[in-house]
């Protein structure tokens, strides 16, 4: 749900909230999904992003986000130089992702050990974003609140197991989605919560049978 500071805000670096602030946040999200320091980045712009990314500085903004900068960091305008200093190589491609929002970017990051992460996100106006895909999982994350991602075996009762642990710890859920590749395969819960979530809760979840991972993504 939209809040006052989604409209009056963010405090940001110009020139365009859809192309600059939103792009920084998608980049930051990709970095947090990777969880380590990226050494290479492939960015594929789709729709309006593909057509105007150069003019709006979207390219500089995404790189700034991948480097972990905030939306009001005055180094955004020189992020390519910062990337060079920090040893991040990057490439841009223009593409057309089927059915995607006009302002969509797909980011593939790699760290020094070869670990990869893919994040697809859309900048939906005013610096707000929606993360539509993380690796093979279709998501719908605003990034405004802490989010718990729980891949698990697709067996009955898993939602109850996880939600009971959260409820028992006084954690309130305000967004929930569940998807799976096929029946009995791997399923992924995406849980957006109010306030902060303690890392120890994800450890408890991970100890449960049939849970494959439990990652807390901090609000961005």
């Amino acid at each position, binding site marked *: *749900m*939209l*809040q*006052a*500071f*989604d*409209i*009056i*805000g*963010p*405090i*940001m*670096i*110009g*020139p*365009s*909230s*859809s*192309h*600059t*602030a939103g792009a920084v946040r998608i980049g930051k999200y990709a970095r947090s999904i990777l969880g380590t320091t990226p050494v290479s980045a492939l960015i594929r712009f789709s*729709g*309006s992003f593909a*057509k*105007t990314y*150069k*003019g*709006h*500085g979207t390219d500089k903004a995404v790189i700034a986000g991948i480097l972990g900068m905030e939306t*009001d960091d*005055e180094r*955004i*305008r020189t992020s390519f130089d910062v990337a060079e200093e920090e040893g991040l190589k990057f490439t841009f491609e223009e593409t057309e992702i089927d059915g995607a929002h*006009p*302002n969509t970017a797909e980011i593939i990051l790699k760290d020094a050990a070869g670990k990869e992460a893919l994040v697809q996100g859309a900048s*939906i*106006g*005013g*610096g707000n974003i929606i993360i539509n895909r993380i690796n093979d999982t279709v998501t719908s994350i605003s990034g405004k609140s802490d989010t718990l991602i729980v891949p698990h075996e697709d067996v009955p*009762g898993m*939602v*109850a197991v996880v*939600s*009971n642990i*959260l*409820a028992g710890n006084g954690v*309130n*859920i305000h967004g*929930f989605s569940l998807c799976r590749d096929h029946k009995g395969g791997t399923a992924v819960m995406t849980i957006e919560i*109010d*306030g902060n979530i303690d890392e120890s809760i994800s450890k408890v979840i991970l100890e449960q049978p049939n849970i494959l991972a439990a990652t807390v993504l901090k609000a961005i």
Partner: protein
Amino acid sequence: MCKIAGNEISLLYCFLLNYLENGVLKLKYDSLSVLVKEAEKQNLPLCKLILKDQAEVAETEEKVLFENMKRSFTVMRESVETGLDPHERSASGLTGGDAFKMNEAVKANKNICGKIFGEAMVKALAVSQTNACMGRIVAAPTAGSCGILPAALITISDDRNIPNDDVVMSLFTASAVGMVIANKASIAGAEGGCQAECGAASAMAAAALVELCGGTPKQSEHACAIALKNILGLVCDPVAGLVEIPCIKRNAMGVANAFVAAELALAGIESAIPADEVIYAMKKIGEAMSPTLKETAEGGLAATPTGKKLCEKVFGSCQNCK
């Protein structure tokens, strides 16, 4: 608040729980008239109603949100100062110095629309220019339209010596208008054209101006409707895809329009079409707009001979002009 128990997520249950816990339903921001009626019912100005609700939603104290908004307002003021620099040019080199020129005219008493209009235009140009130069601004609701709201509020508060805290409060009123527009239509040029950006900013500013000048919530609603009606259909056609031409000058227009709408509403003039229906019309118009007129820089001013030439000047070639 609703918690998930087992696999059962009952919307109705959440709804009821929410109602029982709070006694009142949280505001939904899907209708301006509902917000105005709620303000009238609780006998509160819109800004207080919104702050109260937003604090509940964010599960925090009103004071915290107020301080955050105050910080935003400080950045707004700073962005006016930065933009008055006569020498600063945008990264593309296409724009710069307009706010300074306008300011000189107003200071010399040479502008034809009087002090308030002059000052408002100076500030809108300045903030917008800061944005084009990759400086720090507050999106309101977007960066392309970031000059309109600060220009309106700073101008009126300087002119009438309105206390800073009151101006900060009026930003909550503006945010409510923006939330309704975002929820029911759009605030992105790529989706709804410039009516969605400069139109929304203008409507937000108009509603806040009315409140700061002693108008009623209902008058804020009318001002919002009038401001938006005046900008319906405005396309997003930035030259070279840059948020500079025509955006910077459209901010000057947007703040002037906000004053027009507020002035009419404060005089008791009503919008024949209610704000909520204007917002719906805006959504429909945005949907009907050709994609070439929604931020892709393929149509409108971007596709004029001069627009294309400027684009080539910036990029060496024009990737968008077919």
